[in-house]
């Protein structure tokens, strides 16, 4: 073996620091949530509103863990992003894609009805949270728009002045979640189908250029959420366009 003269790269540091301290108690306590409303968003996605009386409160971008229990005690648990903005309603909303053969999403889309109860714990993880303090550039694909929508809703509900822009990619206008709620802050990209005159294709550097040109003096904090393919593609485009890698937060499905 060879001994090289390389010196260590200094003390260990976080590449992308977390945004907030998280409550250990909220993270470790399961509580019962009651389904109060189901709203269809697209042919493959629906929003599920849950009453969680002892919800500790969350920040936009956080997620929770959800558990379904069968009669024989078998459980299935999954992580889902929270779609609703923080408020004091005692309710939170999740928007779930129907995954083919999805054990948990299948139950939500075919069996669930208001009055059903499930278990949740959270909110979890401070890494993807956005407290509304820094200018943020949000990039999502498919149901990756869900945690980003929580940020947009929070921004509107509080009347925040901090710059916020979003780019969403969907297969077609019919598959675009929250389509009616998206405003001038959002750039829409359709990958498979669109009305005549609207270009079809994946996100390119040309989509990002105007957003990056609007960069505030201290730069954007970028939040990327979607499939791994989307996250890899878009994060590389961002880096190539000059966005610092340590100001790109990525949440990938899985």
């Amino acid at each position: 073996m060879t001994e090289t003269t390389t010196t260590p790269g200094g003390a260990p540091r976080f590449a992308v620091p977390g945004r907030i301290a998280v409550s250990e108690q909220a993270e470790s306590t399961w509580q019962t949530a009651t389904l109060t409303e189901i709203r269809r968003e697209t042919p493959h996605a629906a929003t599920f509103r849950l009453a969680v009386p002892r919800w500790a409160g969350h920040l936009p971008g956080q997620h929770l863990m959800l558990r379904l229990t069968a009669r024989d005690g078998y459980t299935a648990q999954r992580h889902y992003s929270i779609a609703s903005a923080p408020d004091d309603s005692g309710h939170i909303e999740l928007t779930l894609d129907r995954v083919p053969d999805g054990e948990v999403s299948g139950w939500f889309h075919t069996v669930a009805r208001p009055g059903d109860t499930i278990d949740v714990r959270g909110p979890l993880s401070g890494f993807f949270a956005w407290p509304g303090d820094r200018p943020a550039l949000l990039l999502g694909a498919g149901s990756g728009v869900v945690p980003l929508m929580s940020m947009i809703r929070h921004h509107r509900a509080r009347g925040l002045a901090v710059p916020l822009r979003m780019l969403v990619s969907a297969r077609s206008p019919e598959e675009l979640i929250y389509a009616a709620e998206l405003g001038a802050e959002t750039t829409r990209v359709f990958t498979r189908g669109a009305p005549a005159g609207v270009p079809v294709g994946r996100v390119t550097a040309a989509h990002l250029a105007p957003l990056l040109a609007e960069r505030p003096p201290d730069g954007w904090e970028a939040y990327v959420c979607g499939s791994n393919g989307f996250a890899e593609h878009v994060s590389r485009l961002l880096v190539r366009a000059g966005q610092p890698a340590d100001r790109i937060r990525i949440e990938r499905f899985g």
Partner: protein
Amino acid sequence: MNVTRGFTGRAREHDPGLPPGQYDARDDWPVLSAEVTPDLAPADWTFRVDGLVERPRTWDWDAAHALPASAYEGDIHCVTGWSKFGVRFGGVSLDAFLDVARPAAAATHAVARSHTGYTANLPLTDLTGGRAWIVWEYGGEPLPAEHGGPARLVVPHLYFWKSAKWIAGITLLDHDEPGFWEGNGYHARGNPWEEQRYAGD
């Protein structure tokens, strides 16, 4: 127990290899890094062992490959819920590096760090005795960049966030120091068999 009305779940296959709360990802291997995948060529990769060791040392790609080859064949478990059975990682046992660097008697913990700056903390006992590897092959092929290539740490008996991608080194300490996810609410040790997902579990 709060039974979910109408929930039956998938067919029960009693699988003693599946830790509590996990499901079998089968052919999938989800990518879950929270940062941009770095462009890191093997020629630029190095691995350093320092901190409380007698002989701090840095290995480059060729020097690391000159150590005795060792493979892990078995299962891996991700804190998000999936487990993957029967994977094969090829590389070198971490013991081979530590045998050269010689941990000091006072060393009890380690921080693993990536070339991106990502960190994970581990008790030293989880890294020794043939339980941890530095790997550059997956299924006989070069480890893909999005899965941590050119080389990553693999500590398969703990949740996989401990298995730092794009591994740059480990620093031995006489105390525990939270890493990236541990500072973001995750458990200090992350034993899947005790379902240590979050702080407080």
